[in-house]
């Protein structure tokens, strides 16, 4: 239990919130609402999955919001140019890998602290995009863009499935594959990992490329939910993703954390807004409550730790 204290705290906060909603506004638990929530938050979950890798390595990436915007516009422009959707997807992911690789070089090769390197990337990408598009939307997309041309039900299914597949593959990767274990090793102690024969720089570089690829993929599936691509997508996405990961118990210093925790964190943050609306809470309080819930989740972890210590003490 001690190991997963934070994950449990996040899950407990989520359960408490859902229980409150179940008592006061049971209509929240409808299949339609579940479907919409899953679909709306699938892209954020994909980004949070990538962010878990980055934070586990002891790094951070605050440029994902800007990467998301660049990838969205790239998807729109390429689709409009007449590329078939699979080719668009491939091109967008490559574009994401390229952006991630820039971060990777800055952090792994040149040893620039990740928060600084990605802060620079964040403003550079966002402002370059604004400069290039002047905020214009990509409109008049071909018919096969929205829902990949498959219709709402099938398209939505594919998006949620894609998010879940990526999530499951990531769990496998982190838990069972040497490259994934290396992420933990580097995050726990870069020096020890190096002595054990792991190249920390390669792992760090790879993690940022992976982050870029997942961000681009998230942008792609998000864009495919609509018929137009706005010029300024993903503002604040980085904070959302980081919040989901850290609320879900991943240590910001790296080396400790689970994807299950990230799922709990992402679910908690995804549910707060709609749940408050169902509870009839004035939207003016939403942001304040969101902050309070994050802080409460942190404090509950401490309370859990206390209880545990008391229990240990009593059993001695």
């Amino acid at each position, binding site marked *: 239990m001690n190991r997963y204290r934070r994950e449990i705290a996040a899950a407990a906060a989520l359960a408490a919130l859902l229980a409150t909603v179940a008592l006061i*506004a049971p209509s929240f638990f*409808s299949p*339609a*609402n579940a479907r*919409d929530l899953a679909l*709306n938050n699938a892209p954020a979950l994909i980004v949070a999955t990538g962010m878990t890798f980055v934070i586990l390595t002891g790094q951070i990436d605050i440029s994902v919001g800007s990467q998301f915007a660049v990838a969205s516009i790239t998807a729109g422009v390429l689709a409009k140019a007449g590329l078939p959707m699979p080719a668009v997807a491939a091109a967008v992911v490559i574009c994401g890998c390229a952006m991630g690789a820039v971060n990777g070089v800055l952090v792994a*090769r*040149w*040893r*620039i*602290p990740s*928060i*600084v*390197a990605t*802060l*620079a*990337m964040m*403003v*550079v990408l966002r*402002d*370059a995009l*604004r*400069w290039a598009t*002047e*905020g*214009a*939307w990509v*409109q008049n997309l071909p018919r096969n863009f929205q829902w990949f041309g498959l219709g*709402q039900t099938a398209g939505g299914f594919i998006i949620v499935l894609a998010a879940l597949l990526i999530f499951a593959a990531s769990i496998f990767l982190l838990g069972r594959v040497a490259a994934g274990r290396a992420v933990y090793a580097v995050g726990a102690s870069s020096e020890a990992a190096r002595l054990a024969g792991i190249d920390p720089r390669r792992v760090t570089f790879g993690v940022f490329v992976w982050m870029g690829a997942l961000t681009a993929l998230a942008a792609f599936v998000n864009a495919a939910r*609509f018929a137009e691509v*706005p*010029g*300024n*997508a993903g*503002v604040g996405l980085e*904070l959302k993703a*980081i*919040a989901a990961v*850290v*609320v879900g118990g991943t240590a*910001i*210093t790296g080396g400790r954390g689970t994807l299950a925790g990230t799922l709990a964190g992402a679910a908690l943050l995804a549910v707060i*807004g709609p749940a408050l*609306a*169902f509870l*009839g809470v004035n*939207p*003016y*309080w*939403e*942001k*304040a409550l*969101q*902050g*309070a819930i*994050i*802080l409460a989740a*942190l*404090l509950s972890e*401490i309370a859990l730790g206390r209880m545990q210590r008391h229990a240990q003490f009593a059993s001695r």
Partner: protein
Amino acid sequence: MHNSPRAETDTPKKSPREIFNAWFPNNEWALLAVIAVEVFVFGISGENFLTAANGFEIGRLGVELGLLALALTPIIISGGIDLSAGSMMGLSAVVFGALWRDAQLPIPAAIVLTLAAGLAGGALNAVMIARFQLPPLIVTLGSFSLFRGLAEALTRGIENYSGFPPSFLFFGQGYLGGVLPPQLLLLGAAIIGYALLLHRTSIGRAIYAIGFSPEGARFAGIPVARRLALIYMLSGAAASAAAIVYVAHLGQAKADAGTGFELMAITAVVLGGTSIFGGRGTIPGSVLGLIAIVVLQNGLRLSGQPAELAGILTGALLVATILIDRATRRARIRTAAAAGIANGIAGDAEEAEEAGVKNSQVAVLSAVILAAALIVAGSNWLLVRSLRESAAPQGGKRGESSVEKSRPVIAMMPKAKGDPYFISCRQGAEEAARELGVDLLWDGPTDLDPAKQNEVVEAWITRGVDAIAVSVENQAGISTVLRKARERGIGVLTWDADSERDARDFFINQATPQGIGYTLMDEAARILDRRGEFAIITASLSAANQNEWIRHIRARLAAEYPEIKLVAVQPSDGDRDRAFAETQTVLKVHPGVRLVMAIAAPAVPGAAEAVKQSGRSEVKVTGLSLPNMCKPYVHSGVIESFVLWNTVDLGYLTVYAARALVAKELKPGARRLGAGRLGEIAVEGDEVRLGAPFIFNKSNIDRFDF
């Protein structure tokens, strides 16, 4: 100078190199060079950049950011971070406004209590971080939402405190002895205070020790928790002080004060050589970082460059300064090792080994700097070309007659540059500028920061344009600076949204808030057949215009349509995807809703897509948006109709009015204004009317392309 163990072993006689290193322990000289280059480039390309007045103006712009950067420096040196500073500014601003206006406290008392509130907010962070040892990044991420959310909740987003007494506003807007902005004194005092605290006291030494190793600091007998608590509480108080300066500067207190300031402040600190890992950094470095950023923004504006360049160059600078630091640090360690004092800097040596900057990397670094320089050079070349073009028509005449003036410069500002609504206005403005042969400067905020509009106008005043036309975001805030522009003999227009009446010559009025609100409500009533429930999707909860419209919508609703009910007002932050999700939720929470009224341009297609995907054909969408964005939904029938005016014509008319104002054809008492393809436009008092709001629907939407 203080974090190098060598300082203690120094012999009385220092070599010049050592003195140099003592002054710039983290290669802050690189920033001096950057600032010198900036001053040089902008001195050539920017108009009136190299004037004392502009120097003080730059100082004024940097005060709020500077206070945050100062407070963040020790926090980052201690290995922490405070993301909540910008949000604390918003909360402090509304607390200050409420204390002064609602609690009727005198200004000094309100200031003291606001600073106390800042301390309390900082204490919340401090308890979580110092007492419970939670990671600062997560804690302040939580309080980042909490503080801003409280500010919005306390004011319902609507409250905008203004009308502060002149003696208070003088602090933010006046000039001591005719030149010196008073708030610069506060910043100066804060710099000295923080420099003394960090570099001349044992507390400061303790913070460096904590940054190197919290464990080690504890073993050395440093009260780690208390020292950390101190700097986080100071940060809260500094954010409050920044908020008070901000309120005095803008003349208004609103929940959105300081949006995004935390990242700018962190950028300044890191640019100034403070290591994000802690243990290294100086106050002078942070001040230099601040100056580099503020000068860059101001200089780009004065040379008429797009504001987006500031972000791109700042990013490049961040990377470049750190790499320079790496390269020279390695060189220095090598020399130090050769001199046989390597033992003294063992800590650095390890880092140097990690850094491992090679010649090839220095080459790449040079390439980065070169690329950045090329961007500047390239855009300057564009500038020169545009200047040549503008000079060309006059040709040799310039020298012959001094009466022949160069082309008038008309500066026009949208509320937000990236907003599709304003992009369409720009189309019309540029069309008119071409027809009239005037130079059009188009610049404005790229983000939600409400102080940006003031900064841009200040820069235009310094630059010396002929006319300024502003779409006003914050009435109380911008009016003071517009009055200043009028005093300098610049023609001032407002368009799209008005300032206070005496702050401008004319208002290009496309529709009054009342007209918009009533038209929206009447249209909603028509679609609903005068009965049923509807919901509103607004922009952000603190958006001034939308709140004004909602007020009139409610008034009309109460007066005319007793059987219609407004069940929810939800924010979208002007984001299409957020509007989509909020609409989905509204439709489920209030199944009786038959109409969604979205009153921000990107929110209408978002709401329409949500209704379309819900498959509920009985629900309709209306609101305020642009034709191109909504066309598919209007044709498919999800959007029954929406309200707007011809935004292209609005931009067009504004430039014609500005030209007439400069030529003194449009003056008080004028009845008509010739406006090119629009023909004669009626002038009523001090307003130029574009016409009534227009209702777009299936039958007419294809006639419009914007």
